[in-house]
């Protein structure tokens, strides 16, 4: 029997021998991905995972694990298996034409045209 300094443990009469059956697969359930929003108006951001047997418990664990310092105003949990994620090996799927100026505000320079027009027409 364990003879502990801690009176609570001493009272438990815990056996010193290791005679428990090992944990089996799924003993700790599946995982959920947790997202939180720090303040209204912000995007939700992924903060980590929890193991849980269902969505409600995942939310409770997520709140305890990631929201216990009062830094969240909202939280989402979603089963990991329900997330479709791209593969880093396939990151070339994000490659596109090398020149993307036409998609950016800076790609449109009108002042030079206006100035040229003004000069030519004495405006």
């Amino acid at each position, binding site marked *: 029997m*364990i003879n*502990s*300094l*801690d009176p*609570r*443990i001493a009272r*438990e009469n*815990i*056996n*010193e021998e*290791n005679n*428990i059956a*090992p*944990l*089996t*697969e*799924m*003993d*700790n*359930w*599946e*995982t959920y*991905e947790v997202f939180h929003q720090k303040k209204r108006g912000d995007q939700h951001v*992924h*903060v*980590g*995972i*929890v*193991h849980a*047997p*269902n969505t409600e*418990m995942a939310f409770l664990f997520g709140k*305890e*694990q990631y929201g*216990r*310092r009062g830094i969240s105003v909202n939280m989402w949990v979603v089963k*990991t*298996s329900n*997330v479709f*994620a791209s*593969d*880093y*090996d396939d990151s070339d799927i994000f490659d596109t034409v090398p020149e993307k100026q036409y998609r950016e505000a800076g790609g449109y320079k009108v002042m030079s045209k206006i100035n040229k027009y003004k000069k030519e027409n004495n405006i």
Partner: protein
Amino acid sequence: MYGNAYIDPNEKPKSIIDGEDLIKLAEFEARIARGEKIEPKDWMPREYRKQLIRMIEQHAHSEIIGALPEGTWITRAPGFKRKLALMAKVQDEVGHAQLLYSAAETLGKSREAMINDLITGKSKYSNVFNYPAYTWADACIIAWLIDAGAIINQVANAKGSYGPYGRALDRICTEESFHLKYGHDNVVTLATGTPVQRKMVQEALTRWWPPIMHFFGPSDKISNHTEILMRWKVKMATNDDMRQQFLNMYVPKIWDLGLTVPDTNLKKNEETGLWDYTEPDWDEFKRVINGGGPCNAERLAVRRMAEEKGRWVRAALLQKDEKYVTPLA
């Protein structure tokens, strides 16, 4: 199309990177050299995966076992504010274990397998937690100096190459800053208190000094793991470097309180800028880490009891058709 599945049947295994795709290995090392992070589904050498699992898993176990010597003092904490603070700290430590188990899981070892390896004694955890917290002052010294040591280790490793471990450590370091301040506040209260309080905190420091010196591990000259871990940015500082950093930051703070460190050789060498100290007793370290310490049996027995008593609840909540998938990040 991937062409690396073919293995020449005439080729014999030779070394640690044996059987690895050398092109992928070169890409992997170049990525790390550029300061980029490795993410869970990325290709990685078997040894990288193995070492990271070993390290993160041990770290997770240390958090969960480390909560036990401090948890002992929750019911006897002097005053309501300290009780609240200690409960919060112990909850944080258990939360850190969860974050770290999650990071290790992304490398392919299930949480159940890690817990099994802990409770059977196959996996190690930080050796300091095999010592008891005799008095309230011991709990204060742990909260201040053991957490200080842990922060030095974690801040260094947070800059490592494995993304999920770095993210977990960033979060942990933020939370640990309160632990350090709380521990310091408690030690200062005792050290500036009555003669009885001063005596109590001095005795606790004297008891904890050898485990604190052991905390960062043996000198890297005799540590097998270090070289490869540092090349792959798994481990970011040598054990001796971290020990020196700790001494440099905290010995002056200890002396400031008029407390005595039980090592007459301890002094800063003005020429080298490094601290001289008596070499810790590494035979004692090995004896304790291999099960011979005062609390090894108790720590594992308490952990087994928790697993065993919670089992029916976990089983009752399990939905039979659910399937485990590895977490994404």
